[in-house]
């Protein structure tokens, strides 16, 4: 559907470099990366709203394309109806059909009671639904969404994710969405591309990126809370006062990334197949929505995720001595 080959675009202090990307027909593709990575510019290049300095963008039919910016960009001098109808009027579609399509979409997106409202008086969620309706009115084969949930509260964000999933399966169109929230990417994407500093770092199914990050930056962005580095000798890396067994035999320099929830915490050594055990002392307990993050001093500070139930059952306090257990298979190693 969209094929980008060797795309480069220089914007003074920032540049997109050597972008090679392919988005398949009907796919829900998520472009992910930190702020300033160049995601919006890449989306504009896909839409033909910006031109590459070099390279090629193929397969985008601008007559069947919808684009939704983060701030929705509703035309402030038009009411809700006129905003939704804009693309249809441009196409000189018959007035009766415009009315029918706008009303159909307004019903689908719960906007019927707002059709004559000034768009400046709408709430964030309403504005977003109007922007979606306006983009969908032209029945696009490709919908490009630039962080549509960034300005919303958590409840509205989850509602929007649900709505986007429903609209994706309903329309069968290709969706390309930009986000910096990897939880959102996990919940929506068929495939994810991770961008940093104007480059595509890794592309693949979300599970693959989550479980097999290609570099330290990717691991960091994907929420790996423990990332260590050093030489690997005989399958072991020295981390603080812990020689951890890693899935790599020899390396002059490698990274080992471990998710906080993959480290088990206990009062005594667990009887398990796990190869890595270390003794440490709890230095802090910080609550979060899942339970808590426990900081353990084992010569080096380790972040361990623990559920609220476990926290209550174990009665963990700052200063307690605990045993940390870690399976080799839970460690991601990469040499760059």
């Amino acid at each position, binding site marked *: 559907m969209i094929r980008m080959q060797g795309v480069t675009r220089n914007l003074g202090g920032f540049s997109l470099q050597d972008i090679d990307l392919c988005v398949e027909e009907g796919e829900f593709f998520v472009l992910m990366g930190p702020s300033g990575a160049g995601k919006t510019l890449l989306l504009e290049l896909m839409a033909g709203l910006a031109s590459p300095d070099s390279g090629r963008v193929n397969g985008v039919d*601008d007559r069947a394309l919808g684009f939704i910016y983060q701030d929705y960009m509703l035309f402030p001098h038009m009411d809700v109806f006129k905003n939704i109808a*804009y693309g249809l009027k441009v196409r000189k579609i018959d007035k009766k059909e415009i009315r029918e399509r706008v009303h159909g979409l307004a019903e689908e997106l719960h906007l019927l009671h707002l059709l004559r409202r000034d768009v400046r008086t709408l709430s964030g969620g309403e504005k977003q639904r109007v922007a979606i309706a306006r983009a969908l009115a032209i029945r696009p084969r490709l919908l490009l969404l630039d962080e549509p949930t960034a300005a919303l509260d958590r409840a509205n964000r989850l509602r929007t994710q649900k709505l986007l999933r429903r609209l994706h399966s309903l329309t069968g169109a290709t969706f390309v969405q930009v986000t910096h929230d990897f939880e959102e990417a996990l919940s929506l994407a068929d495939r994810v591309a991770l961008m940093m500093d104007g480059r595509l770092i890794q592309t693949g199914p979300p599970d693959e990126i989550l479980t097999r990050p290609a570099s330290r930056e990717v691991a960091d962005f994907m929420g790996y809370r423990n990332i260590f580095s050093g030489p690997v000798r005989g399958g072991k890396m020295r981390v603080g006062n812990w020689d951890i067994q890693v899935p790599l035999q020899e390396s002059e320099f490698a990274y080992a990334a471990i998710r906080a929830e993959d480290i088990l915490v206990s009062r005594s050594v667990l009887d398990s197949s796990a190869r890595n055990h270390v003794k440490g002392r709890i230095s802090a307990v910080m609550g979060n929505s899942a339970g808590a993050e426990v900081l353990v001093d084992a010569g080096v500070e380790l972040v361990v995720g623990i559920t609220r139930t476990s926290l209550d059952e174990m009665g963990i306090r700052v200063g307690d001595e605990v045993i940390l257990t870690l399976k080799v298979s839970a460690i991601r190693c990469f040499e760059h």
Partner: protein
Amino acid sequence: MGVFSVFGFALVLLIAVPLLRMLLTVDASELSRTAADSEVRSAIMLTLRASLWATLAALVMGIPLAWILARRNFPGRRVLEGIIDLPVIIPHTAAGIALLSVWGRQSFFHRVSGISVVGTEAGISLAMFFVSVPFLVNAAKSGFRMVDERYEKTARSLGAGPWKTFFSVSLPMVRKSILSGSIMMLGRGISEFGAVVILAYHPMTAPVMIFERFQNFGLKYALPVTVLLILISLVVFISLRLVEERRR
């Protein structure tokens, strides 16, 4: 904030006292006699008409230029902006002489085309246009700069071509700035004396008539025309500001 009020009040006094003093000096019967004078009426109408033509011409030519200056980055843009601002800085008599050298009877343009704007209504409009167009172009340019370019990109993504995008999205979104700039330009045109008097002493605009009467007959004869022009300008501008306010 008390200091703000004191300074603000002093500023209003500086503007209002001479105007009020002038209004109070002229009695009503003198004013109505002046208003009935066909020479005065035609001078005032000519002033308003010429300034309106200048403003309309500036709307047609100035808005596209303002859009280009706001949206495009090209070599020489700063120089172009400087040229647009120039008429505000130079003495208006100098502007009149500059115009005369291009549009006067000795000019290349006149020799080639046989057309001269000296001593015509077109000449008056041209002089007004020259000195007041920066107000409109700069107001429109600031307006376009304040509009997020992504509105235009959104319109383009929905299938609108560049013209449709300009007329249906960009232009309506800067209408307040354009209206405001137009009011400023119209006002500046009406008040113009220096450039107009050099390019077209006749037919006589109201500012030229005020000068002529003051020069030939003294303050007493210049005052009623001055007061009448001020009153008419006041009505015109308060009405336009009300329209602007209502649109807001």
